[in-house]
């Protein structure tokens, strides 16, 4: 049929083959943007942290360390119980509080406060922390992470934070 339609360098058929490859690749690249964008979105969406009330000032005894539960900063409507999170909260003075992450700094397992021993202990790989959150034993490369905490109108509030991860 068409070898006679050669113009300069490129036959008509070659031209359309190339055009086809370019156009279909372009279509692929275009739809890839929203697809990959959707899949990667959670990495880049940073919900602003929120102050969450965890109890009235009077309900915390000085020197005691208790588990407080609160809701993530902006949970999805279908998150159910997974929207909840927790922290170890200690009233260290009249209006001074200190809040530790429940996540072990080793690999994120939930640490428990052992009141008698005044230690945080991790069940997974045996990480142990002193009362002040510093490492007492086991594999954790650093002490427990802390959350910002404040007293606001008689309410103790914790600032929601991402799950703390230890990076290289």
């Amino acid at each position, binding site marked *: 049929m068409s070898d006679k339609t050669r113009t300069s360098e490129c036959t008509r058929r070659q031209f359309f083959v190339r055009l086809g490859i370019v156009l279909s690749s372009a279509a692929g690249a275009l739809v890839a943007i929203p697809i990959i964008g959707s899949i990667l979105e959670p*990495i880049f969406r940073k919900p602003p942290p929120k102050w969450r009330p965890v109890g009235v000032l009077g309900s915390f005894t000085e020197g005691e360390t208790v588990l407080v539960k609160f809701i993530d900063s902006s*949970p999805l409507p279908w998150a159910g119980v997974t929207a909840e999170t927790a922290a170890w909260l200690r009233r260290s003075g009249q209006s001074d509080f200190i809040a530790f992450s429940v996540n072990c700094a080793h690999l994120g397992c*939930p640490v428990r406060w052992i009141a008698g021993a005044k230690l945080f202990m991790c*069940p997974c790989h045996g990480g142990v922390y002193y009362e002040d959150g510093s490492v007492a*034993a086991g*594999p954790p*490369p650093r002490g427990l992470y802390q959350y910002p905490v404040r007293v606001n109108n008689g309410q103790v509030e914790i600032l929601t934070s991402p*799950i703390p991860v230890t990076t290289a």
Partner: protein
Amino acid sequence: MNFLRSAWAWFDDRTGLSAAVGPIAKHAVPPNTATWFYVFGSATLFAFILQVATGVTLAFIYVPAAGEAYQSLQYITNQTTFGRIVRGIHNWGASAMMLLVGVHMIQVYLTAAYKFPREMNWISGVVLLALTIVMGFTGQVIRWDQTAVWSAIVASEQAARVPFMGRWLADFIIGGETIGGATLSRMFAYHVFIIPALIFVFIGFHLYLVIRNGISEFPKAGDPVDPATYREKYEKLVKTKGIPFWPDAAWKDMIFAFIVITTVLVIAIVIGPPTLGPPPNPSNIDALPVPDWYFVFYFAFLALMPPALETYLMVLGPLLVGLLLFCLPFISNRGERSPLRRPWAVAMVALVILTISGLWAIGIVSPWSPRFHAEPITAEIIGADSGPIYRGGMDFNDKGCLYCHTIDGHGGLRGPDLTYIGDRLSSNELTWRIMNGGLNMPGFGGTLSNQELTDLVTFLKSRTKKPAQGLPAD
């Protein structure tokens, strides 16, 4: 009967099915491949098909939403007629698949079937191994209970150790900065769409390569692979002595598949699916996320590696193992195939099996885990119901000693057994050790009162083999 025959003839004429499939099914294979040693690849495939069938069945009922998945799993397990069995098959089928992938890999490695011209057979197999591992992990996470939630966190914390992009990877795995609505939906998408699709593609490729390169003949010592002549030799072998794969070789595959599938079914009925833990509430911290048995060796590895090296081991370790497996056929793709002439290969397999079983055995016991639910020691064990020894024994229970140390079978395994500690350490040594800690023991200098410390030391000093203090030693 005649009608069926003519219907089939019509169908086959219009579709050309038997002409297309027949030669593949009946292709000649070396006679010595029809051995029970060669059934593990096909058995893995059958286990995968079993997983697809039961997985699709579970998807009829399972709700992949963070807030409802747990209830749907409870419903499947407790309120349907067959759901418990289907979940059981899916769970134990996964175990079977892991086991068979491992055995298949060992079998191929021992017979050096990865050598010329089957390098790509091996590499596609390594990709399938990686995909199977990801299926195992994502499957445990979408079993959306408390352990699942904490497993996802542990996985993201491991990924976080990757330099530069750690936080991104961690957020990518759990679908945001915290566990939540996105976590489960994403894990579900990996587990039922992305990874299975890749597995289908790579199984297709893997099987295509088996047909193209032929099933490797069972190796003979002193018959090395030479890329220059191997193909010609193989062609000649199957042409002169070959037997049709279907049915002469395939019947063993089918019988072994029957054994695998019925074993999984029986275990699924007798033992059933793994018990669902408490609900997936990240604020419930009473959790110990131990993975399913086939990952327990890695769990032990994470606990036992030296803290100074752990970031390297966690990130580079799996990468290095993957890379080594990937490169194996490029390290040696010629020469002897028989394990009789490859003692190092046999030693390697033995070493890997020993290492994994060793880690597995330690992981099952997990001596490094504090025993929060250990039975407190009793007045009977203490040997007193008042006085300093008794008070010291109670302190042993209350001050956390019990979680890591055992006395008369009560307590944890992290630290030394203290049943006879009074024979080994003096009062001064005991005091020093309790105050300052050491090795993997916290110092209790800041927590114990003088009274408590004295009582505890008195109690520990009374832990001796000798019947009573003051009597002369034997």
